[in-house]
């Protein structure tokens, strides 16, 4: 057995996979950021931004299809689209001062995180449901705090939170890539 690690061919494949997963999740964070501005400040048409986020949800789902089949990819894509809609409804409710709707969407968002974590852990033993849930909670918590900071025009907080959000989605991406690489034994 070689002690020099996997051949460069495999390392390159893992890098391509890592780039695809990180790019898709970074897009998810970027377009969510843009969606919040669109809803709160009218910088874009929020419906079009939401549709663009659905494309990202499909991209992330498609990455899973090749490893776990069409049903798993479809389920993940659907959960992400529901998440996007929930974030949009929450931002609208926050803008409109509708506290009960904000709370309802907050609860729905965390239920979706639970479902996503459960899905990941069903797909691979590598992904622990509790760890995945904690990472998704961090991401959704950052998005909620971003919403509040953007609405308050607290620039320093917005900058700090968006950097944190990008860091969190990269952390999740690396966890996903490690699990996918184990499956393929890169």
């Amino acid at each position, binding site marked *: 057995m070689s002690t020099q690690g996997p051949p460069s061919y495999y390392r390159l494949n893992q890098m391509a996979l890592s780039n695809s997963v990180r790019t898709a999740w970074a897009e998810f964070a970027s377009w969510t950021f*843009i969606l919040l501005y669109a809803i709160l*400040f009218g910088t874009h048409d929020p419906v079009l931004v939401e549709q663009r986020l659905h494309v990202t949800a499909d991209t992330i789902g498609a990455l899973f299809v090749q490893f776990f089949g069409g049903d798993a990819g479809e389920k993940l894509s659907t959960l992400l689209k529901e998440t996007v809609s929930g974030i949009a409804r929450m931002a609208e409710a926050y803008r409109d001062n509708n506290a009960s709707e904000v709370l309802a969407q907050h609860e729905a968002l965390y239920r979706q995180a639970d479902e996503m974590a459960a899905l990941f852990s069903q797909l691979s033993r590598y992904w622990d449901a509790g760890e995945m849930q904690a990472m998704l909670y961090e991401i959704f918590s950052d998005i909620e705090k971003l919403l509040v900071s953007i609405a308050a025009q607290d620039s320093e907080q917005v900058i700090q939170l968006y950097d944190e959000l990008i860091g969190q989605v990269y952390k999740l991406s690396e966890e996903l890539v490690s699990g996918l690489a184990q499956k393929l034994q890169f």
Partner: protein
Amino acid sequence: MSVNGGSVNPLSQAALSNALRRVWVDYVSWMTALIYTIMFDTHDEDAIEVRLRQNAEDYAGIFAQFYGDAVGEKLRALFVQFQEEMAFLIQEYKANDITAISDHRQALYALGKELGRVLSQLNPYWDKASLEVGLYEIINQFEDEIVHIIKQEFEQSIQAYDRLLAQAYQTADEMTYGLQRQFSS
């Protein structure tokens, strides 16, 4: 040097690729935030500019690891000028000053050319013409994004952002390829 909290091992292709892609995606995100700030008064402009300066530091820090602090500083200064000219471009679009828009566009192209020249002298795997084209494309897509946001052509502005991001990733990957080739032997 630390890139967003983590050390970059010059010989780790994945870490290098991640770091370069991160600085470019940060660049696109915060330049877009600057458009919103100037056009819609969404933020304190100074805070966004401070974050963009950090982005220039992160960018330069990666190159300093390979080529030394003097080169890193030169690239940082050029990148800051690039950011400043883009900020001027947004402001002139807001003011609808056609002459000033043209002046800043020309200044951006000159900076793109200079960046291409400096980078291509550092690494034989970075082609000057290809780097220039990539940087010109970033300028074009960024200008498209400004115009479509001003005109509230939202579908086109989404497409422009996607193209800008794709070009930023392509530029980052070109940098990664060159660094890996030059320093992996």
